[in-house]
Each structure stands twice: as structure tokens, then as C-alpha cells.
């Protein structure tokens, strides 16, 4: 039984992995945009974004999944999005809000003198941000980012609340056949994958250690 169970769980894990990778691909840049909004000098925009981040971080991701999938149909009689699309939308928005706060902390930790040094050399705002500030921010936010990313791996299991197939579902389906151990076995997949991520983040942190400050 071990081989067929493993194959089926791998199938489910591939779905979890897709949610993971697509969420990262969308939420990492989206988080930066949310972050700029929350640091905007235009106070109505700033207030709006802050309020949005508060709602997203203050409510369960599971609830957000349900609202994004069922909400448009129930409230406006609109056709529902495909389940998988709804999952990616909910995850991307949710994680973008968490990332935006991590980015903000990193950006605010960069000394004013770094901006001023760029300014007096005649650099544009964009050049100062991308060439001077952002590289330093990336190094400083590595530890909290690795935390969030590892949490995301485990959060992908929430997708099944709107019936998106993933590894926990795959494991649970064996219970009907009288097998309990495949459910526990799914934990090994998470552990292995997160172990790999931990090593990867450790490697990046080491790579970024070529300078101090």
C-alpha cells in the first residue's frame, strides 16, 4: 500500500505546491505596493490601506476564502470564480498584507542618511529605493520572511474549505478505505518541504552576510 498511497499524496502535494508558488509569485510584489500605500503621504489612501490590512490580518484566512469564493454569487448574483482561482486570490491578498508589514518595518529601519546620501549625489527616488534602500531591506527582513513563507506552506491546507484538492484531502480520503496512517504521513511531506525551505533561507542569509549594517 505504501507506494500507491505515496503517489496519491504526491499528487495532492503538487496541488498544495501550486497554491504555495502562485501565492508567493503574486503576494511578494503586491505586498510592496500595499506597503507603499500604507506609507503614503496622502493620508486618505494611507488610512484606507491601513484599514484594509487591519481587516485582512484581523480575520481568519479560512473566512476570507469562503467570502471570496461564495461572496460574489450570494451578494451580487455574479458567476463564481473557479475554486482554484479564488484560492489564489484569497491567499495572495492575505499574504500581501502580512508581507507589506514586514517590508514596512524593513524600510523604516533604513537610516535617513542613506536616502540623503543618494539625494545629494543626484539620484532619482527610484534609483535610491531600488539601488540603495531595497537591497539593505532584503537582508534585514530575511528572518521574518522565512517565518511567513513557512507558515504559508502549512496554510495551503486551508484551501480545501472551498473544495480545492490538496495533500490533507488526499490523506483523509484513505480513511474511508479504513486507512488512518496516510493522514499522518502527510505531515512528513510538510516537514521535508519546510526543512528544505529552512536550508534555503539559511543559505540566502549566509550569502547576504558579506556586509554588515
Amino acid at each position, binding site marked *: 500500500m505504501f507506494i500507491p498511497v505515496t503517489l496519491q499524496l504526491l499528487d495532492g502535494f503538487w496541488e498544495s505546491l501550486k497554491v504555495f508558488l502562485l501565492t508567493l509569485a503574486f503576494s511578494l510584489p503586491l505586498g510592496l505596493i500595499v506597503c507603499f500605500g500604507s506609507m503614503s503621504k496622502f493620508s486618505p489612501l494611507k488610512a484606507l490601506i491601513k484599514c484594509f490590512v487591519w481587516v485582512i490580518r484581523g480575520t481568519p484566512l479560512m473566512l476570507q476564502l469562503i467570502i471570496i469564493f461564495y461572496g460574489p454569487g450570494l451578494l451580487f448574483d455574479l458567476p463564481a470564480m473557479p475554486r482554484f482561482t479564488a484560492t489564489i486570490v484569497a491567499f495572495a491578498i492575505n499574504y500581501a498584507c502580512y508581507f507589506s508589514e514586514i517590508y514596512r518595518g524593513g524600510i523604516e529601519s533604513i537610516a535617513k*542618511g542613506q536616502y*540623503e546620501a543618494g*539625494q545629494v549625489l*543626484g*539620484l532619482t527616488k527610484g534609483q535610491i529605493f531600488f539601488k*540603495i534602500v531595497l537591497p539593505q531591506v532584503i*537582508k534585514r527582513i530575511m528572518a521574518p520572511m522565512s517565518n511567513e513563507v513557512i507558515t504559508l506552506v502549512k496554510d495551503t491546507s486551508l484551501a480545501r474549505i472551498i473544495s480545492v484538492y490538496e495533500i490533507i484531502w488526499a490523506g483523509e480520503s484513505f480513511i474511508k478505505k479504513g486507512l488512518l496512517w496516510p493522514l499522518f504521513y502527510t505531515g512528513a511531506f510538510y516537514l521535508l518541504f519546510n526543512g528544505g525551505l529552512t536550508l534555503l533561507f539559511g543559505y540566502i542569509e549566509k550569502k547576504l552576510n558579506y556586509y*554588515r549594517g
Partner: protein
Amino acid sequence: MALLEVKNIKKSFGKTEVLKGVSFTLEKGQVLAIIGSSGSGKTTLLRSLNFLETPDEGEILVGGKQLFSAGVKYTDDQVRENRLHFGLVFQNFNLFPHYNVLENITLAPNLLNIASPEENKVTAMHLLEQVGLADRANAYPYQLSGGQQQRVAIARAWAMHPEVLCFDEPTSALDPELTGEVLRVIKGLKGEDRTMIVVTHEMDFAKSVADVIIYMADGVIEEMGTPEEVFDHPKSEKTRAFLQGFHESY
């Protein structure tokens, strides 16, 4: 015609008036040293010249061209271009920690296409030789002493060929034994016919390197003249008291 003309600069932060109408001119190739106790407005004046502060009143002209006039709205690009007339060396160096010494110097020339990357590198190496750090081109700022970092910062500012190079207390953050190397480098620049403004607490340095001395007190120029005039025959009572205080504290 004077290279730099500063006319009636006023600046307040909230209710505190830091600059109460500062005017002076500077000829090309001259070195101006600004002295005065802390809180007298020296740094704010320097930051105004580099457009890091926006004066409430006054005008700034370089080579007869008006770069700043209070009340006029300037776009980001205009401010950026105006800044290129000036360079600023900070008290705390503000090197970019994630770039090595050479990259710190070539970053702006490369991004602003001053010359080709190869030429910018040659220029940077030449500058590093002049500040005595050619052998540390690949070092990162954290691997350098404060004096070395400040010399890199001087080379970085110089690489943009500003018409007026400003120094904001360039040795105040350094251990006493490291100030000499930085002051020597600044002195060396003078021979290159550079126009410079140095805010400093180093009276001996000001005396030996400056063509003009400004003594600032409470947001105004209390006294301006040659080093001999200001140091040896101060006209104002305040200047005398300030210089007296300095002699006593050493």
C-alpha cells in the same frame, strides 16, 4: 562674478527660526570655513545649499544662474539637477554598507551615465589614489576605520564633479587620532582649485586652509572675513567670546 551667491536665506523649524537671513558670496576656487557653536544654523545652511532643506526665504545662485528662489515650486527633477552643482560630505559618512568602496564611488556616476562604466571606474580608482585608499577598493565600509570611510565619502562626492563641495563637520564623528588624515585629504583638494565650504570645529584647520571664514551665531553671520581678520582681529564681541572659549577649552 562670484561662483556662489547666497541671498537672505531664512529657515524656521516650527517656531524656531534657525536661519535669520544669511547672505554671502564665494569666488571660484575659494575655500570657505564656517565656524560657530552648535545650534547656530551652520548645518541647516549647508543642507539648504544641497536642497535637503527648503529655505522659507532667499535665493541661491551658482555661476549667475538662479537655482533656488523661495516660493517657486520646483519639480523633483529640477531639484535633482540643481543638487548636481553641489556635493555634500556628511558628518556620519553615510556610505552604502552593501557596496564595496569602488561601487560606492561609481554608483551615482554609473546610474547617471556621467561616463562609460569603464571610464567611471578609472576615475574612481584615480580618486581613491588621491585619498590614499586605492588598495582598499574592494573592501566594504564595515571593514574600514572611520577616517578611511570619510575619505571614501569624499571621493564619492568628488566623483560627481560638483562645482561646490560641502563638508558638514567631516571630522566630528571621528576619534581624534583619525581627524588628521581626513583634514589632509581636504587640504589636498584645495590645490585642485576646488570651491569648498567646510563647516568645522577644527579652528587650526580652518585657519590654515580657508580663504574666507564665516562665524555664525544665532542664525546670522556674525562675522565674515579672511582668517587673519576673524581669528586675529575679530570685530564682534560675540566672535571674540567664541574664540576665547575655544582657546580655554583646549
